[in-house]
C-alpha cells in the first residue's frame, strides 16, 4: 500500500497536506481560524466551510455529497467551541482518482465506467487529518479512515474475501464496498465516526468489516500518522536546540 504524505506544501495557507495513496492523490488546504462572512458566523462555535474540487472539470453534485459527508464527520472531531464566531476553511483539491489513473491519465467521460466516489472520500478524510494537524486546529482525537471491499461469493465454495484498499478492478468485481472511519485515542480506535457502505451485504459481513476497520485504522495510525507527525514536529523545531 502506498501512503505518502507531505505537509506544509502550500505557503499561503495555515496548514496543508498532500496525500498520495495507490490510486488517489489530493491536496488539502486549511485556512483558519479566520473572520467569517456575517452569514457564516455562529455565535458559540466555529463554522466550517468545506470545498471539494474534482480532479477534472467543475464541481458537481458528486462533490457536494463528498463535502456533506466530510462536514458531518469533521464537525465531530474539531473542537469547534474553541473558535467561536470564526471560520475554518477546508479545501480538498483532488488531483488523481482511480478512474483517471485507469484511463492512463487522459480524461474521457466514459459512460460505462462506474464511479466510486467513496474512495475519494476515504483519501479526503485521511488528508484532512494531516492538514488539520499542520494547521494546529484543536482536535478531540486523531482519526483515520479505511476502505474495504467484499468480493462476490465464490461459485464453488461460497468464500468471500475482504480486500483492504481495493483497486478499481477489485471494486468492479466486488459485491459491496465500505468506508470506515474511527477516532483514535491512545493508539486505539475508540469511536465510530463514519460508515458509508454501498452494494449488497449482510449484517454479519458489516460487523466483520467494522472489526477489520478497527485493525486497519489502528495500523494506519501506528505506521503512518504517528511517524509523519513526529517527523513534522522534528522538522518544525529544527532550530530549537
Amino acid at each position: 500500500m502506498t501512503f505518502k504524505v507531505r505537509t506544509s506544501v502550500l505557503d499561503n495557507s495555515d496548514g496543508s497536506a498532500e496525500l498520495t495513496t495507490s490510486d488517489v492523490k489530493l491536496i488539502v488546504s486549511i485556512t483558519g481560524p479566520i473572520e467569517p462572512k456575517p452569514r457564516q458566523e455562529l455565535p458559540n462555535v466555529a463554522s466550517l466551510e468545506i470545498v471539494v474540487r474534482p480532479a477534472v472539470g467543475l464541481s458537481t453534485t458528486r462533490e457536494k455529497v463528498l463535502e456533506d459527508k466530510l462536514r458531518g464527520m469533521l464537525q465531530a472531531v474539531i473542537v469547534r467551541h474553541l473558535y467561536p464566531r470564526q471560520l475554518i476553511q477546508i479545501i480538498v483539491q483532488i488531483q488523481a482518482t482511480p478512474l483517471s489513473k485507469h484511463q492512463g491519465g487522459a480524461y474521457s467521460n466514459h459512460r460505462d465506467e462506474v464511479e466510486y466516489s467513496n474512495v475519494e472520500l476515504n483519501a479526503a478524510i485521511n488528508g484532512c487529518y494531516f492538514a488539520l494537524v499542520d494547521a494546529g486546529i484543536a482536535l478531540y482525537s486523531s482519526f483515520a479512515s479505511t476502505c474495504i471491499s467484499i468480493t462476490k461469493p465464490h461459485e464453488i465454495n461460497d468464500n468471500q474475501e475482504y480486500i483492504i484498499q481495493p483497486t478499481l478492478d477489485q471494486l468492479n468485481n466486488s459485491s459491496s464496498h465500505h468506508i470506515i472511519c474511527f477516532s483514535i485515542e491512545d493508539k486505539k480506535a475508540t469511536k465510530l465516526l463514519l460508515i458509508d457502505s454501498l452494494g449488497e451485504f449482510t449484517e454479519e459481513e458489516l460487523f466483520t468489516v467494522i472489526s477489520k476497520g478497527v485493525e486497519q485504522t489502528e495500523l494506519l495510525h501506528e505506521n503512518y500518522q504517528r511517524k509523519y507527525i513526529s517527523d513534522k514536529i522534528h522538522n518544525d523545531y529544527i532550530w530549537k536546540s
Partner: protein
Amino acid sequence: MTTELKQVSFPPEVLARIVPEVSLQRHLSIGLRPNLRNFLEFKPIEIASHANNITTTNDNVFGSSIVKSGNSTIVTTVTLGVVENTNSSTSTFNNNNNNNNNNNNNLTNDQFTSIYPVIDIQRGRSGAPSDEEMILSQNLYETILHSRLISKAALKINHCGLAIKETDINSDKDNIQIFYPDIHPQVFVNLPSSSSTLKKSYSFVIFCHVKVFSKISTIFDLCYSSIIDALHDLKLPRVYITDFSSTKISVKSRNSNTRGLVGVSKSSLNIDLNNELYYPLELSSEGGISCNFGAIKTVKNKQEDEDITMENEEVVELLADLEGEAEESTILSRISIIVDGNEKIKRLSLINGDINSEISLDILQRAIDVAKLRSRND
C-alpha cells in the same frame, strides 16, 4: 438592595422555536417526541402508484408514483431518453448475453446503470437547486447504481423498428406503417434499409423527476421509495427509425453570399406510443425499504420510591424517522439504512456528527434490527 429577577417562561411552542434542543430534551425526558411518536415509531407512508393517471394522461411519462407521509407529498414521474451505444458498451452487452441465464452474481458492477434523479423541493421560490436537493439526487443516483438494480442489458433497445411510408394513390394520403424485426420477421427481411438500422444499437436512459411538497422531515427515504415504486410501474416503449424524414439545411455558398437550402434525408429515432407494445422494465433485484435513525443523549431521571435522591442517568436514545425542526437541527448522529426483503443491506450511511451522542455498535445493531423488521412487514 436586591432586586427580584422575574423568571421568564415561554409557552412550549415558543420554546421550541428559540431553543429547539431544550424543547427536544424536555420531550424526551417524559418519553415522548415533539411529533408525539414513540422513539422507534415510523411515520406511516401511503403509496399510490397504480391509482394515479399521470402515466395514462401524459404521453411522455412512462412511469409514476405518488407517495404521501403526513403532510408531505412526493410525486415522481419517469421520462426516457435514448442514447446510442458506444463500441465499448456493446462489448459489455455481448458479455452480458452470454451469461444471461446465470444469476446477477456473475456480472461486474459496470454492467449496471442508474437513474438520473432531479429532486425539486417546493418552497415557493425558483432558482438554482439547493445543496440539499443536489445531495439528495446524488445519493439516490449512487444508491441505485451500487445496489445493482438496473442492468444495462435491461435498458438496451433490442428490436428497433422501422417506419415505412406508403402513399395511397387513391386517397393521396400518406400511410405510415411500423415494422419490428421480432413481430414482423418476414416483412423485415425484405425492407431495403433494414441492414443499416441494425448496425447501431441504442439504450434508454431513465430520468426521474421528483417533486416534494411540504417537506417537514428528512426525505431521502420517501424519495427512495417513490423512485423504486415508479421504477416498478415503469413501462418501456418501443423505438423505431424513420428513414424518410427529410430536413432542409441552409448552406452558405462558397462563391457568393447567398444561402441555399440543401435537402438532407436523415433517419430519426422515434418512440412508438402504441401502449399495447409497452413492456415492463426488468429490475435485477428488489429495491428494499429505506429507514433513517438519529441518536441523541438524554438524561433520564431515576426516581426511587422512598428516597428523595434523584439519580441522573445518561442514555443515548435511538429515534426512528426524524421529523420536524427540533429533531433535524439538534440530532447530528444519524444512520440511514436500506434493507431488502431478504435481509440484505443495500446501503448504510452512518455519521457521528455529535461526539457526545455517539452511535455505538449496540445502537447500530438495534437500528439494523428495526430496519430488518420494517422491511419484513412491508
